């Protein structure tokens, strides 16, 4: 086989437990985002636009929906005869076989896959970030510098720097120090969890790390510090565009809200960097006689007869007459009954909200049976396929999960 210059590996095995009911039955990368996408569409589309045509997707937690979604990779133009998209679950081999223990171990277990393509470089991505990035530019910088590893970093506000893995760099952009969530950050360059390794370097460090019984087999905790200690050439690549970790219900909601407006924080309509997704045969959206839609995005298959204000409505959502939805995210196939009122909520896929129900209107209260630590900042999450009765009242900071 012809060797590849760069193969991408997307770490998509995480549960994303802080997304609560949204990841009850699906892995985090398969969580719907932005009206018609899923989170994994972003790294996959970025790969294709960056000229990377071989992508391994490492799955572990609730893989069915994610595997089905990726399929043969066709929606991202990744159905290739040589290369393309591969779903890589943990597997049994000979007498052994085990779950992925950490990010580094997950790649280690798939060295056989990488070996088949014999790439010069390996791009490691995580499947839970929303951003548009040209990995090709990062790869060029990596190769020009002849670095062992290049790590994408982004400047974050100083006051937030202690929440991230922080890289200190010298004037040449070389990484001199790495600190995971430092109390007193020396730099405000946060690691984005995007790495390009020289393949032989990656192979060596992963193999050594696997032999170390004390290691947690994690890139951030083990591999990067070890490389620094060994004096490898480690470069930073600064990214200054929109990037969002959608690890919590509130951040997922916020990232959806970032798509709204005449000049949104994050623009998806750029025809030169289309985010691809699996398309279903749905009709155009129908906006009814009684509807009012303002400051929102709506997509195919919807049938809207209520009032929508400052919200993101996903595909095939039905909104009954007199319903009012404000500052909310309504995921695919949800049905909102007539007269229901919804504010600052995330309504999961296929959820049914009864007529005249109130969701996220009344303030949080002691003794709320649906109170959840995952729902802060006043947000409400109604899990996928949950049915809320007519006239029900779900107060702020509630999470309702299907039984």
């Amino acid at each position: 086989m012809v060797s590849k210059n760069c193969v991408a590996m997307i770490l998509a095995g995480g549960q994303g437990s802080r997304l609560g009911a949204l990841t009850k039955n699906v892995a985090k990368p398969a969580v719907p985002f932005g009206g018609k996408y899923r989170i994994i569409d972003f790294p996959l589309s970025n790969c294709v636009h960056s000229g990377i045509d071989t992508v391994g997707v490492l799955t572990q937690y609730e893989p069915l929906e994610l595997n089905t979604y990726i399929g043969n990779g066709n929606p991202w133009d990744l159905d290739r005869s040589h290369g393309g998209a591969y779903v890589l679950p943990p597997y049994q081999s000979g007498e052994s076989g085990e779950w992925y223990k950490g990010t580094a171990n997950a790649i280690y277990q798939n060295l056989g896959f990488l070996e088949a393509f014999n790439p010069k470089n390996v791009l490691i991505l995580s499947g839970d970030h929303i951003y548009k990035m040209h990995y090709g530019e990062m790869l060029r910088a990596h190769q020009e510098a002849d670095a062992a590893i290049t790590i994408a970093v982004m400047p974050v506000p100083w006051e937030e720097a202690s929440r991230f893995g922080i890289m200190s760099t010298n004037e040449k952009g070389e990484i001199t120090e790495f600190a995971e969530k430092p109390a007193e950050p020396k730099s405000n360059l946060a690691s984005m969890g995007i790495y390009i390794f020289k393949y032989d370097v990656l192979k060596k460090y992963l193999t050594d790390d696997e032999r170390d019984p004390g290691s947690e087999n994690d890139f951030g905790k083990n591999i990067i510090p070890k490389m620094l200690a060994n004096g490898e050439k480690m470069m930073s690549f600064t990214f200054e565009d929109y990037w969002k970790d959608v690890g919590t219900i509130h951040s997922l909601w916020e990232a959806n809200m970032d798509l709204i407006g005449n000049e949104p924080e994050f623009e998806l309509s750029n025809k030169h960097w289309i985010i691809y997704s699996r398309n279903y045969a749905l009709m155009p959206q129908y906006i009814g006689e009684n509807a009012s839609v303002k400051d929102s995005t709506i997509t195919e298959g919807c049938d809207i007869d209520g009032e929508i204000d400052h919200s993101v409505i996903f595909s095939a959502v039905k909104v009954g007459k007199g319903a009012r939805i404000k500052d909310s995210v309504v995921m695919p196939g949800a049905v909102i009954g007539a007269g229901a009122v919804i504010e600052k909520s995330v309504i999961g896929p296929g959820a049914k909200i009864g007529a005249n129900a109130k969701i996220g209107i009344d303030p949080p209260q002691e003794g709320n049976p649906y109170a959840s630590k995952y729902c802060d900042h006043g947000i409400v999450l109604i899990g996928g396929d949950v049915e809320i009765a007519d006239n029900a009242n779900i107060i702020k900071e509630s999470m309702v999960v299907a039984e």
Partner: protein
Amino acid sequence: MRYDSMGIILTGDENIAPLTDIRSSNALPIAGRYRIIDFVLSNMANSGITNVGIATTANYSSLMDHTHSGKPWDLDRKNQGLTILPPNLEKQNYGTIKGNIDVLEGIRDFIKRSHQTYVILCMSNMIYNGDFNEIIDAHIAKQADVTIAYKKLNTAGEDVLKRYTLLDINDDGRVTDIEVQPYYPKTSNGSMEIYVMEKALLEGIIDECSARGDVDFIKDALVKQLDGMRVYAHEFKGDLYKVDSLKTYYNASMSFLRAEKRNEFFNPERPIYTKTKDQSPTKYGDEAVTTNSFISDGCEIEGTVINSILSRGVKIAKGAVVQNSIIMQDSVIEEGVEINHVVFDKEVVITKGRKLIGQESYPLAIAKGTHI
């Protein structure tokens, strides 16, 4: 899967100026994200037919761009699948196609090398959502030579019936007479121009007609042999639109604003497939007003849209008012524009403050790329 039958779609070219100046009528955008051919192609796919040929006559680059490999219909197959059949102009009929027999003669090789027993032959200007298995099964049960699908157009006026091929049918369902677009319609059984027959019979008809210089499959082959051949009719109970003029195109499109028509034509059990474009969701601005409209993805709406159909990527600026109109892909309606009863082809730009008013009985159609 319907392995015993193959599909042939003849793309008759209706003149719906100026929309058909640049494309054949079967590739005309309709209902926002679709093309007219999507209906018959999806019906084929939903009926489990996996060998489909589209015989083209002229202006077919738009059609080819749309169907591509046949992927949206799951017709990108290693064996058979979708075949686009350009006109065969190297025969003696060079440069002129006098009738559909010429077209069929041109695709003889395709028909010959297909291994199915039955052929379902359709025209591309009819819009319906139906299951071809019903008519093929009826054809086999009746041991018919040819079975024609028809729709009872009982409530249609003479002006409508005149545009159809009409069938006289006896109590047994046998066709006793066929009239092509008669001046004085005798019956209201409108042919859907869907014909089922054995492949061998179709090949025989092509041979015989071309040997005699006959050019029309209906007038020359069927009508003249109604006594000798068992030609049966099979009633279709769903809705049917024949799109052969701007008026019929406009009316068919506007009917999709009614829920019962959307449910009939876009039945989720038998989806209509089309080429996907990966457009981002449609954005509504803070002053947008939209009611009773069918809107595709990738639009930006800041003005008012009432009783209208928008294709993908249409921009409606603040203060613009769009009513009772069909606006195709990537058209731009600038600030303060007022339009009513218009059909804009793709990439039409209407600049600030202009007005363009058609009539319900006479919608105004504007050619692709026009700047007003």
